[in-house]
């Protein structure tokens, strides 16, 4: 089985650029990834691309070939869709292709244009990741779904809005030095608590923003990296996916996310490690409560203990396992189709040491990324390790 190396990573700054097309965003991310990788475009054998709401935001289906074209790549291309976990599912397929020997060099990425839809339009577009008949037509929104999970969590394990506020404060602080982040500014617990409510107990500052952006990775086999003398020290050593019932109402509990537990168990098993070896993590904090659920699911906090992790400093930059040093979805932004790959780009830089927070995790040689779709009916976890 061939080892999968990250040859290069590329991101656009995430933010508010309503007039920029998805193809322009993706092109920018791939230019950065090819520069970082020192791999020629002509070596790309396939493009695997994640996108969620392209039909709604840009009236554009069949985005695979469009994005390969934008990237200057002449290769077969396929779009992957799993709501907010779209590009992580593309990575999973890329990992399988390289491991099996079907491919040596792949371009993997994602993009999303959202802000052109406005707040109402984007809220409506995001809602299609829920069950249309039984959730959306009853009035469900994504903030409402995570709010229901938060209330169920509080009821089961305790905790309150102030605990959640510490997650937002931590992630905003982490983003200050990240030039790719949408919000490079610190906020206080009071700011979070006093912000308008979106769906109780979640307020504006508990929620990730509406973002435009793109991300890209050049993934190669170990033999290709050796043959070309590439500086590709980070490998994807574990990949796992979990699933759950689509509608929140059909789950056994709303206070946990078993799909993410399943994904992480498979990914850790695949990598031959346990959660205790993880030194740094990027998790899917589309809302503050989502980070709490994520760190419990992937074994970085025990059940019911995740709620206090940020407040107690266990997941801050000074903590045992820093979580979302990029700023997370909360402050870095969440162009949904780009998010999964952007987490791996950030983790790669953290492990290589060329991230603004690289010095803070100098000793870390294992990173984990958790990317969730919908109300975690889809979950993908990847393990990254420094291998060279």
């Amino acid at each position, binding site marked *: 089985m061939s080892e999968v190396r990250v040859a290069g990573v590329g991101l656009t700054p995430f933010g508010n650029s309503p007039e920029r097309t998805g193809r322009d965003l993706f092109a920018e991310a791939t230019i950065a990834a090819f520069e970082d990788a020192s791999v020629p475009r002509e070596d790309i054998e396939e493009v695997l691309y994640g996108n969620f709401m392209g039909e709604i935001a840009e009236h554009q289906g069949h985005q695979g070939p469009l994005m390969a074209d934008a990237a200057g790549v002449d290769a077969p291309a396929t779009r992957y869709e799993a709501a907010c976990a779209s590009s992580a599912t593309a990575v999973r397929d890329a990992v399988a292709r390289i491991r099996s020997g079907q491919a040596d060099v792949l371009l993997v990425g994602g993009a999303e244009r959202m802000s052109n839809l406005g707040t109402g339009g984007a809220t409506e577009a995001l*809602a299609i990741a829920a069950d249309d008949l*039984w959730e*959306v037509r*009853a*009035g469900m*929104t994504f903030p409402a779904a995570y709010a*229901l999970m938060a209330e169920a969590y509080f009821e089961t394990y305790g905790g309150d809005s102030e605990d959640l506020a510490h997650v937002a404060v931590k992630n905003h602080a982490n983003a200050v030095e990240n030039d790719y982040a949408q919000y490079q500014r610190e906020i206080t617990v009071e700011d979070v608590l006093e912000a308008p409510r*979106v769906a109780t107990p979640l307020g504006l500052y508990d929620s990730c923003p509406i973002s435009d952006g793109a991300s890209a990775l050049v993934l190669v086999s170990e033999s290709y990296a050796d043959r070309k003398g590439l500086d590709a020290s980070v490998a994807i050593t574990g990949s796992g996916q979990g699933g759950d019932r689509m509608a929140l*109402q059909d789950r056994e509990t709303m206070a946990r996310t078993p799909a993410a537990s399943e994904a992480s168990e498979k990914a850790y098993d695949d990598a031959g490690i346990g959660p205790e070896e993880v030194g740094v993590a990027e998790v899917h904090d589309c809302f503050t409560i989502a980070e709490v659920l994520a760190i419990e699911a992937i074994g970085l906090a025990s059940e019911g203990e995740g709620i206090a992790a940020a407040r107690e400093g266990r997941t801050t930059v000074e903590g045992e396992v820093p979580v979302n040093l990029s700023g997370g979805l909360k402050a870095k932004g969440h162009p949904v189709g780009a998010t999964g790959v952007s987490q791996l780009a950030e983790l790669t830089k953290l492990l290589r040491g060329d991230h603004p927070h690289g010095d803070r995790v100098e000793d870390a040689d294992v990173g984990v990324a958790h990317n969730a779709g919908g109300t975690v009916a889809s979950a993908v976890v990847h393990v990254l390790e420094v291998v060279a």
Partner: protein
Amino acid sequence: MSDDEPVRDAGFDDWLDALGDGDPYFLECEHGHGSLPPRRVCPEPGCDSTDLEKRSLPETGRIESVTVVSVATPAFEADAPFALAVADFGPVSLTGQVRGIESEDAEIGTTVSLELATPGSETVDRAVAFRPR
């Protein structure tokens, strides 16, 4: 059928009709697992049953979680802010607005009955709703 006529979602719209008629139901397989239409296979892992029968839904449910939604989708904007809950009716749980109560007074544990609501909407003419008992 003309292009202007809205097309029904078979199974789902039939269920809303039944709710409007005061006779909501759920689907039950021969092993007693509950689910909602449209459905052909029992969703319980490992059950595999395709023998799903309509059964009357219990009259009351319990709110399992509830939130007050201020930022709604365009179809529900006129209703906001509103309480949205998941309520457990035993064999199945449902999602809906909580009506007939101040939205911030809806709580986990509240006993509710089901009703068909007309939201202040141009695109959704009817929706699942709950009323405290």
